[in-house]
């Protein structure tokens, strides 16, 4: 397919790998932020093409993985109500809550529906006026314009039986949390290409300066990632710490302005709890005052309940790039995609799932 196949060319990948090897003189640790990039790296073996001195660590960019247990529990509470049709992206259904997951609710008769787009959930609300339709609005900045549009259209068209359970997270505060952690070992970032497609990359410029860390906005195909690594290593070797853009075919410096306008209209920045990491100030989106009536937590009076996370799951360390998935004692034994301890083993973008799926030797 155009704009996919050409970026998987093996010869060009080898040329990039050789170019990276030529400029690397010291060990460097680089984090790819987005789970989509992690999967491409592990699936195509991009990391195995790199010189031994380059270590890629996998970032927190998997919204399913960082959604806290209490929100999963709230989703389960809502999905179990007989008056609710609960709509979600498919990834969320097998994420373990405290006692069960959404798939279990569905199996025991809950009306849980997998949708491709938030607009599908809005259509379901229109078609089922006697039911309350709740959409599980999970995602990073990339998904926020879509979810904002669903709420905006619901308000415009007076669709009252529609609401969102919001668990939106933002990338730059998470990167700052990683950089300011005493255990941090990340020296450069490949920033998430689709997040930056929406938001642009001016937000990253103060981070690059403050922490003296190069940040390269990077795409998702093997050649994109290799070029991103090359640009990042080049900066590290030259002692530079700038924001550069590898993914120029999609990302403009200012981002997508119409999308940002609607995000600002419908959402506001709020503190958010990240699974395995804890609360990060100003790291999420919640509905703005004007659209507060579409907030499912308010509509259904879900009290804020603190829930203990499984102590056996070490996904917090994996999400911060401190531990690799196969270094976890539970990996591939007590924790598998069929019986996950944490979301990083469930999501199609989770680092643990990527290792389980593509790294046969590790658990073979």
């Amino acid at each position, binding site marked *: 397919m155009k704009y996919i196949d050409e970026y998987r060319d093996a010869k060009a990948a080898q040329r990039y790998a050789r170019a990276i090897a030529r400029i690397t003189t010291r060990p460097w640790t680089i984090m790819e932020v987005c789970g989509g990039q992690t999967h491409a790296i592990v699936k195509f073996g991009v990391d195995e093409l790199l010189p031994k001195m380059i270590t890629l660590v996998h970032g927190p960019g998997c919204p399913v993985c960082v959604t806290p247990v209490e929100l999963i529990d709230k989703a389960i509470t809502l999905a179990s109500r007989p008056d609710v049709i609960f709509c979600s992206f498919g990834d969320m259904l097998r994420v373990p809550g405290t006692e069960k997951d959404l798939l279990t609710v569905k199996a025991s008769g809950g009306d849980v529906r997998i949708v491709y787009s938030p607009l599908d959930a809005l259509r379901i609300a229109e078609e089922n006026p006697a039911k309350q339709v709740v959409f599980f609005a999970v995602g990073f900045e990339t998904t926020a314009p879509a979810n904002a549009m669903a709420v905006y259209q619901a308000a415009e068209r007076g669709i009252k039986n529609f609401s969102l359970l919001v668990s939106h997270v933002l990338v730059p505060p998470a990167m700052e949390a990683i950089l300011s952690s005493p255990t941090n070992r990340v020296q450069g970032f490949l920033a998430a290409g689709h997040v930056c497609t929406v938001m642009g990359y001016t937000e990253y410029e103060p981070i690059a300066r403050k922490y003296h860390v190069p940040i390269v906005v990077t795409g998702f195909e093997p050649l994109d990632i290799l070029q991103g690594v090359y640009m990042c290593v080049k900066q590290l070797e030259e002692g530079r710490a700038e924001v550069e853009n590898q993914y120029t075919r999609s990302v403009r410096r200012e981002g997508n302005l119409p999308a940002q306008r*609607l995000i600002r209209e419908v959402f506001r920045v709020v503190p958010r709890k990240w699974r395995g990491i804890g609360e990060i100030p100003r790291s999420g989106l919640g509905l703005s005052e004007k659209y507060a009536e579409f907030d499912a937590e308010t509509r259904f009076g879900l009290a804020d309940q603190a829930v203990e996370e499984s102590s056996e799951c070490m996904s917090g360390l994996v999400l911060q790039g401190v531990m690799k998935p196969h270094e976890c004692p539970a990996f591939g034994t007590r924790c598998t995609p069929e019986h996950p301890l944490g979301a990083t083993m469930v999501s199609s973008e989770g680092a643990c799932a990527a290792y389980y799926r593509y790294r046969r030797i590790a658990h073979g």
Partner: protein
Amino acid sequence: MCLGVPGKIISISGDDPLTRMGKVSFGGIVKDVCLAYVPEAQVGDYVIVHVGFAISRLDEQEAEQVFEYLRQMDELRELEGGSA
């Protein structure tokens, strides 16, 4: 979750910029896609689609830069006479 797939716009419907929809082909599989966030996109353009929304119009010239960068690196090496 931030998966974005490139596809080609084959038709556009609706005049209201905020509800503009289009049919987008992904290697032959056609889906309805909201085009509200790519007001500049026309039939024949490629867009990145995420959960039913086009979030950018792909720039055909910039799409070449991954390969252009490689060519430039190789030329530079030849000029420097490096072969390692």
